[in-house]
């Protein structure tokens, strides 16, 4: 469904992606792990065209992702994104955040979008917060609204860019629980994360990225329990046993 072939990307003279090839199947959950600065987030941002790439090919259901192309809007409505810092619209209520895309981009009738928006907020456990503005919500609640906003586009896949990294530790669980439910319901997900527990239990596959290349990839349990490459072993040791 999502296909990357030999993707290269530089910021100035700094090459952050040095030939990434990977694919994500329908209903698959793929976690991308790796040290910070390794290019994990850049991969996600290239998939929905928030960032351009210099060389290679990215396709979503066969359509090439080109940042300046006319198809980019269509791709973005099919591949939603959840950000590390939520990026909710602070001047709109939770419900308005959720229906913004359906009403103004997809031109859905408002009443229908509102009905579905309320259902989505209920799905992420925030039925009673529909009229709250983002600054009145906790980080975990904001991120769940952001997930509802992504779902409102009825996407074929959702990209998660470190969705729990900006959260207080006690709020991480509520967001991961919502994501796990999505995965169980068959949503295609690509998740950049440092939550190894989530990766082990929910992901089908894990990619370990370091220095702009995929160092190792494989089924989640296998890779996380018995990493083959020394760099993967070293990274996991440091993440799992920081002391």
């Amino acid at each position: 469904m999502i296909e990357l072939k030999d993707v290269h990307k530089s910021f100035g003279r700094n090459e952050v992606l040095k030939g990434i090839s990977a694919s994500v199947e329908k209903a698959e959950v793929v976690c991308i792990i790796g040290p910070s600065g390794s290019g994990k987030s850049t991969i996600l941002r290239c998939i929905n065209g928030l960032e351009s790439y210099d060389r290679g090919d990215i396709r979503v259901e066969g359509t090439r992702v080109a940042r300046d192309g006319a198809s980019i809007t269509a791709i973005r409505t099919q591949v939603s994104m959840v950000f590390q810092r939520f990026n909710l619209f602070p001047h709109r209520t939770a419900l308005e955040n959720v229906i913004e895309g359906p009403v103004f981009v997809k031109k859905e009738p408002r009443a229908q979008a509102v009905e579905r928006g309320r259902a989505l907020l209920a799905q992420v456990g925030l039925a009673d917060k529909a009229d709250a503005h983002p600054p009145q919500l906790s980080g975990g609640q904001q991120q769940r609204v952001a997930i509802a906003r992504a779902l409102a586009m009825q996407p074929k896949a959702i990209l998660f860019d470190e969705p729990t990294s900006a959260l207080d530790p006690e709020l991480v669980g509520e967001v991961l629980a919502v994501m796990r439910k999505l995965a169980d319901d068959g949503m295609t997900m690509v998740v950049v994360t440092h939550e190894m527990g989530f990766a082990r239990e929910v992901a089908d596959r894990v990619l370990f990225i370091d220095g702009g290349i995929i160092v190792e990839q494989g089924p989640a349990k296998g890779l996380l329990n018995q990493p083959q490459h020394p760099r993967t072993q070293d990274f996991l040791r440091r993440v799992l046993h920081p002391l």
Partner: protein
Amino acid sequence: MEKFARDAAEFLPILLNGVALTIIVTLGSLLLSTLLGLVWAMMRVSGVAALSWLSAAFINLIRGIPIIVLLFYLYFVMPDLGVSMTALQAAIIGLGVAYSAYQAENFRAGIEAIDKGQIEAAHSIGMGWWLTMRRVILPQAVRIVLPPYGNVMIMMLKDSSQASTITVAELALQGKLIASSTFKNTSVFTLVALMYLTMSIPLILLVRHFEKRASHR
């Protein structure tokens, strides 16, 4: 004091005619400068190099010319080029164009103060440039821009007196005419000053209200 009261009663009706023109010039040029300023600001942040350059060039050109020279140009030079207008039209256009440069910089600062994550979030749900502007950026930028906008309103009210230099009989010019024919300089110009102040006070209160609201968020 008694003398001042008598003079005031005598001159107030004439000065009030001037006040009407002052208000017309101020509101007219405020409207024009806001619309033009928005256009320049949008061009500046459009991401299209040619538009951005054009807007920057225009803003710098206007900022480098005194308002009074701009007014003279419109009123005295344009007729030579075949474009003639009334003094009032020239005043509104001159002040409106001059202030559009400051409005544009103000608007641009407000737009650029919005977190980049907001733009990315808008793009990620498929919004294009215009929809992102209209639904995400501008509504948030307004809150940032309003306090300085209020200050511009006050400055425009006072700078509308420059229209007197091209024969618009607004408050300042009415005052000067009365003073030079009656020699009652003290009474007349004290009255004029008080009338400008009276018009400024509601605007000053408005700015304070905007500032309070902006700091609440």
